[in-house]
């Protein structure tokens, strides 16, 4: 860390000329980056200009610049908009529930996998566990729809054979969020476990040997060595998830929800999508999106700052 700082200072104290001469020698390298930089500028930085739409009475015919200002009308009405408040609430509820239920799942899987001695079994289980991660939510939602289907689904088959009435889970306000959480775990548990398994494999084996000498059993070693050594990783990932709390899972929800469950399922992102690209209230939708993005950036930068302070290195 200090070495990096010192080197930076040396760079800065060098006369500008010297830098320019060197830059000239290395101009091929700058040229290489030219096209990627232009693409990034066009598709990432130019849309920032489009944010102005949020402050305009946007009319596509006039364009962004010529449309009239709206004097923050949209931001004033944001918190009088029942549907926005509902979306904000749903976003937070779904995110928090995912943090409580889905976040620990990969940790449990990693610890259990680590206890498996049969190498092949462990490998196969792990490979299966992250297979859904590589599928899109379109594909997975199509599968979920079949598994939860009132006609053909296995769960309703069980309910039916026990004498109950089939439940249309994805159209039921009581069951939609549980379905979101379970399917989220299904998709991401294996992928999430990889990083914990890597952390476990870097635990010093001496610790286990010392515990053996002290007569600790497998279970004790699991609870007193494996789990505690994961804590730093857990803390970092948890803080990062807090920074992402406004992202409740756009792809997942857009592919699973339907008007019958909007009350519990409509999140900010899906609301922006429908307002903007289905009802074409582009200016209002941009305002909602901007609100979300600004709060989101603050949260992510904040989360990273906390991690940096804790561990002296952030995520970059």
């Amino acid at each position, binding site marked *: 860390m200090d070495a990096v700082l010192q080197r930076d200072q040396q760079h800065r104290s060098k006369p500008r000329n010297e830098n320019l001469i060197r*830059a000239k020698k290395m101009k091929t390298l700058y040229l290489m980056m030219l096209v990627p930089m232009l693409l990034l500028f066009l598709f990432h930085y130019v849309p920032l200009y489009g944010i102005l739409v949020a402050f305009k009475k946007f009319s596509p015919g006039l364009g962004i610049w010529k449309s009239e200002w709206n004097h923050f009308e949209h931001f004033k009405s944001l918190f009088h908009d029942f549907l926005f408040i509902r979306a904000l609430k749903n976003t937070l509820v779904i995110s928090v529930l995912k943090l409580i239920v889905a976040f620990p799942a990969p940790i449990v899987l990693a610890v259990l996998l680590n206890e498996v001695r049969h190498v092949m079994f462990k490998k196969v289980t792990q490979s*299966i566990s992250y297979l859904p991660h590589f599928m899109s939510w379109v594909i997975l939602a199509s599968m979920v729809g079949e598994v939860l289907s009132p006609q053909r689904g296995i769960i309703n088959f069980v309910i039916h054979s026990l004498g109950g009435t089939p439940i249309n889970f994805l159209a039921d306000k009581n069951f939609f969020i549980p379905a979101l959480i379970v399917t989220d775990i299904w998709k991401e548990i294996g992928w999430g476990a990889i990083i914990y398994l890597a952390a476990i494999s870097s635990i010093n084996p001496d610790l286990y040997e010392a515990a053996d000498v002290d007569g600790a059993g497998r279970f004790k070693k699991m609870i007193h060595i494996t789990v505690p050594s994961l804590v730093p990783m857990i803390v970092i990932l948890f803080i990062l998830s807090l920074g992402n709390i406004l992202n409740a899972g756009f792809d997942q929800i857009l592919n699973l929800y339907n008007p019958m469950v909007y009350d519990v399922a409509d999140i900010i992102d899906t609301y922006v999508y429908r307002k903007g690209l289905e009802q074409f209230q582009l200016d209002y939708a941009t305002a909602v999106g901007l609100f979300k993005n600004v709060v989101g950036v603050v949260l992510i930068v904040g989360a990273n700052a906390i991690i940096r302070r804790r561990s002296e290195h952030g995520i970059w």
Partner: protein
Amino acid sequence: MRKKSFPLFDTLNVTFLSLFSLAVLYPFWQTLVLSFSDANNASTLGFHLWPDQWVTDAYQFVFTFQNIMVAYSNTIIRTVIGTALIVTCTLLTAYPLSKKDLPYRNYFTAFFLIAMFFSGGLIPNYLLIKSLGLLDNRLALILPGAVNVFSIIIMRNYLMTIDKGLEESAFMDGAGYFKILTSIVIPLSKPVIATVALWAAVGHWNAWFDAMIYIRDPSKTVLQMVVRQMMVALDLSQTQFGGGGMSNANLLLSNVRAATVMISIGPIILIYPFAQKYFIKGIMIGSLKG
């Protein structure tokens, strides 16, 4: 070493993990069974672990229906071109950024990193594509994601670790940076290139949202969108894939959708055993702080 065995715990653990694996795979299996069933089989109440008889009607329908095949080839095209573009942009950016003595390197790095934080958002992106005249243009599916900052970071971190000796001696021999990149750096970083390429390929293969908002013309749509439209529609005749005498009385929309899902995940499943280690390598390198 671990003398104190705990057979009960082992048994429970292996049982639990086996059930877990079955649960993870079950939705895939049900889709497979459904894709090899016909309407009679699929519409009876109850679930089917095994079809009454394996029929390939759904696949015959999918493979002979031109719109679905067009979407399939569109997916292949965007995956090949899009991946090539991402890998090229990643290399062209990561190599210069990996040079510690590149003047003003920090400013350039910042230019790329900042893009990870801020985005205009859904509507500004849409307005940009619209004003560039790229609606209904395949470029709208390829260009916006061409520069992948996360891949650049992974690649840069890796390039910073490779031995500089070879590069320097090539430099002495009068090779330029571009020559060094193509003849020394790229051969040395094949594993990371594979990682970045596989990630990009899976991303393009699975992408649907961009096609949903930017593409209206059915001849330019992608396979994922076909599946999505089949999900929203109630029966075959409601899709643009059904009408015009193409509906098949022996098939439910669900059968056809299941078959489409299977052909869409097929390639991923096929490369999965070989590609796994590269996928994992990605998060390992990525999590090393640069």
